[in-house]
């Protein structure tokens, strides 16, 4: 069989039905992740091999239904209709047969060539359920293959049956079930009209379109209305039938249809499933009783969140240190090979530091996604949402937002880059966007050196208290900002919370490894290059245009003529300060000083804040250079002493600066990751502007308010 006629299997199924483990068992490591065109839904593809035949396997998003309400469902449906895979494998949780068959029935109504994968058959048996597979096949009229995806049992047979169906190349044969006489009559009337007027007739059954119209499906409605002729003929009929059903049955057509679907399923289930013993409370329910207990539940959650945070930053500490040391060594090597000059500066400060900056996040992201994979695969993630929902709902966030906020720096020392990426667990698009936009307010690890210099200089006696206040402030600001976003630009109705609480399961090593790896790789591949490019631009801003040659020569002459090493160091530091002042960043700092004067910031502070856009820890070293500390610029204690002794600096200015640093524009890496996660430049640009304006206003309130109270 040639490549052009390669068989494509699409995997459909409910979330938590073990679709991913079946996909992994089918494809092994031959898989990759992409995007569906135009949307940020992951598209996983892989290759299965059956007796030397390569089969393409496409993993559709996990869905409960095939409506037009959620992005995932629409993506899955449009793929089935537009790409027409040779066969669809519907992964069904055997222990949860009835609800899973709801999607199966909808796939059958669409008419796709289908094989049902009766997954987690072992769990069903352990719960005392006996499923008559032969009877189920007979009633559904499609092949049914029992599997245990986690252990790969039955997966070969599944592949064989799926390929057999694909080879037979059946026509799409939509399942016809009765939805009661009123709906059926309406369907027949609509089908007749559509059969006369749909150009794509033959690809999609007219009855399916009629069904969707009666269900009020917005996407199909829109497509029909595009053809104004057809729309004029069809839509009044849809409306009339809907009214008729509402009058006679006192219910919407779509609920009537859903009820009949479940009726159809219940009839099948009764004939197929026998409960050998009634298990009142199974293992999972007993665990749940403990983990969602009124008192113990929240305590355990706190422990898990704290433990997860500790694990991520503890685990990443060593690899990050190795990477830093490695890149420092590389920079040192290049410095010895190349003479001082623009090329050396570009390579060492631009490229090597930039690549180091990109890779420095990799261990963090890896450990964070590992922890998230454990929480997702074990079923605990849904409990986090269950426990936190009541609190976070007030701010328009989702229960699972708490994880992103904590990883982002809710416990001081996090990082917004993995924090923003952690929002992938949120299904509600608006709550997710709001979370992404407020994660940068948290106190990430790179803001801590800035705080620690300023605290050491001006609040030395109350270090812990000030840091605690900063932590509370960041939470308060993040939650209030989320509330504000959700009642303005991200306003509108809340998405339904209605959510499955899957049974607790032990994660498999393979599943964890694949999840962690693919997400980490996506970061390195897609965000990494862009972060590097912007880092180099930032380097250029901080380096050029520098001093003109005559000024440089004059400085060098003075340094050469220095009497003592101390004097020499002093002069070098002053030259560095002068150079910084001449760069584009320095000029921006000066240009902004009029604007920042009400906050108490002079050009030195401004240039440090501009540099902080590259990475927040750069603020400390740039301040050091701006205050001509020379080689000692990196030392926090000497900078703290210098600031404490400088006129114009005081606790009030320090407080205003700390608030500004907490809130203002996220760093390059975060901006790029926001771009990746939201799929457009709109939100990262919004974040830059919104955060900086908010930071300005807050610092203004702190500084001017403090002065009015006579504090500064």
């Amino acid at each position: 069989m040639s490549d052009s006629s390669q068989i494509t299997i699409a995997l459909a199924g409910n979330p938590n039905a073990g679709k991913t483990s079946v996909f992994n068992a089918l494809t092994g490591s031959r898989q990759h992740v992409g995007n569906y065109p135009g949307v940020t839904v992951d598209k996983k593809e892989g290759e299965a091999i059956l007796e030397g035949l390569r089969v393409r396997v496409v993993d559709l998003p996990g869905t409960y239904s095939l409506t037009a309400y959620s992005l995932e469902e629409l993506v899955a449906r449009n793929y089935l209709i537009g790409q027409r895979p040779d066969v669809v494998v519907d992964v069904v949780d055997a222990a949860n047969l009835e609800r899973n068959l709801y999607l199966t029935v909808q796939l059958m109504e669409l008419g796709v060539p289908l094989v049902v994968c009766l997954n987690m058959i072992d769990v069903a048996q352990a719960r005392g359920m006996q499923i008559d597979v032969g009877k189920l096949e007979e009633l559904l009229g499609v092949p049914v293959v029992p599997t245990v995806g986690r252990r790969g049992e039955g997966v070969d047979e599944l592949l064989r049956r799926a390929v057999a169906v694909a080879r037979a190349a059946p026509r799409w044969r939509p399942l016809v079930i009765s939805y009661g006489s009123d709906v059926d009559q309406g369907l027949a009337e609509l089908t007749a009209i559509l059969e006369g007027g749909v150009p794509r007739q033959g690809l999609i059954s007219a009855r399916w379109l009629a069904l969707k119209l009666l269900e009020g499906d917005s996407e199909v409605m829109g497509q029909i209305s595009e053809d104004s002729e057809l729309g004029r003929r069809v839509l009044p009929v849809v409306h009339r039938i809907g009214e008729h059903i509402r009058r006679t049955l006192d219910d919407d057509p779509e609920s009537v249809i859903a009820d009949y679907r479940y009726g159809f399923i219940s009839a099948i289930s009764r004939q197929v499933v026998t409960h050998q013993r009634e298990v009142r409370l199974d293992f999972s329910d007993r665990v749940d009783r403990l983990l969602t207990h009124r008192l113990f539940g929240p305590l355990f959650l706190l422990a898990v969140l704290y433990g997860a945070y500790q694990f991520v930053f503890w685990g990443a500490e060593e690899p990050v240190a190795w990477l830093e040391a490695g890149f420092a060594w590389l920079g040192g090597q290049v410095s010895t090979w190349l003479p001082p000059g623009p090329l050396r500066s570009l390579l060492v400060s631009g490229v090597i530091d930039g690549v180091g900056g990109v890779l420095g996040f990799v261990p963090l992201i890896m450990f964070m996604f590992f922890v998230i994979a454990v929480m997702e695969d074990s079923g605990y993630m849904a409990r986090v949402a269950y426990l936190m929902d009541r609190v976070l709902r007030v701010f328009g966030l989702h229960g699972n937002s708490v994880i992103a906020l904590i990883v982002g720096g809710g416990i001081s020392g996090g990082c917004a880059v993995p924090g923003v990426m952690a929002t992938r667990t949120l299904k509600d698009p608006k709550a997710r966007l709001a979370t992404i936009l407020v994660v940068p307010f948290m106190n990430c690890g790179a803001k801590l050196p800035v705080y620690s210099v300023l605290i050491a200089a001006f609040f030395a006696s109350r270090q812990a208290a000030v840091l605690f206040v900063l932590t509370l402030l960041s939470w308060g600001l993040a939650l209030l900002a989320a509330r504000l976003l959700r009642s303005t630009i991200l306003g509108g109705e809340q998405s339904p919370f209605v959510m499955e609480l899957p049974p607790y399961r032990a994660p498999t090593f393979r599943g964890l490894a694949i999840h962690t790896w693919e997400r980490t790789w996506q970061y390195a591949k897609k965000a990494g290059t862009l972060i590097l490019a912007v880092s180099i631009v930032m380097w250029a801003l901080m380096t050029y245009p520098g001093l003109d040659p005559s000024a440089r020569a004059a400085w060098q002459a003075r340094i050469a003529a220095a009497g003592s090493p101390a004097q020499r160091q002093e002069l070098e530091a002053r030259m560095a300060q002068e150079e910084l002042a001449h760069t584009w960043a320095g000029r921006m700092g000066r240009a902004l000083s009029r604007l920042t004067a009400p906050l108490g910031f002079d050009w030195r502070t401004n240039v440090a804040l501009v540099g902080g856009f590259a990475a927040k820890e750069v603020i400390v070293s740039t301040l050091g250079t701006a205050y001509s500390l020379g080689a000692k610029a990196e030392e926090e204690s000497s900078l703290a002493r210098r600031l404490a002794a400088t006129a114009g600096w005081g606790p009030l200015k320090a407080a205003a600066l700390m608030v500004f640093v907490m809130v203002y524009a996220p760093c390059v890496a975060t901006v790029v990751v926001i771009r990746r996660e939201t799929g457009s430049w709109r939100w990262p640009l919004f974040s830059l502007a919104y955060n900086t304006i908010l930071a300005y206003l807050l610092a203004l309130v702190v500084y001017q308010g403090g002065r009015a109270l006579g504090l500064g």
Partner: protein
Amino acid sequence: MTTTLRHLQPGQKATVVAVNTGGELGRRIRDMGLVPGTPIRVIGRAPLKDPVEIKLRGYNLTLRNNEADHILVEVEEEA
């Protein structure tokens, strides 16, 4: 006795009588198998009394109290 799902206590069993909401929420509730005639049992509530966790069709589902308001149930009397 007929009431809404919000007013059920943990451990109580009931049968769904009607789902009085449409739109996305109504669709979602029905997708999850909460249709008239379905037997349910309340497992518990989150620490702040909201959301509620129920068992139906052999699996566990959670929804907010203000969503549970739309679900009319017939309470099964204690045996």
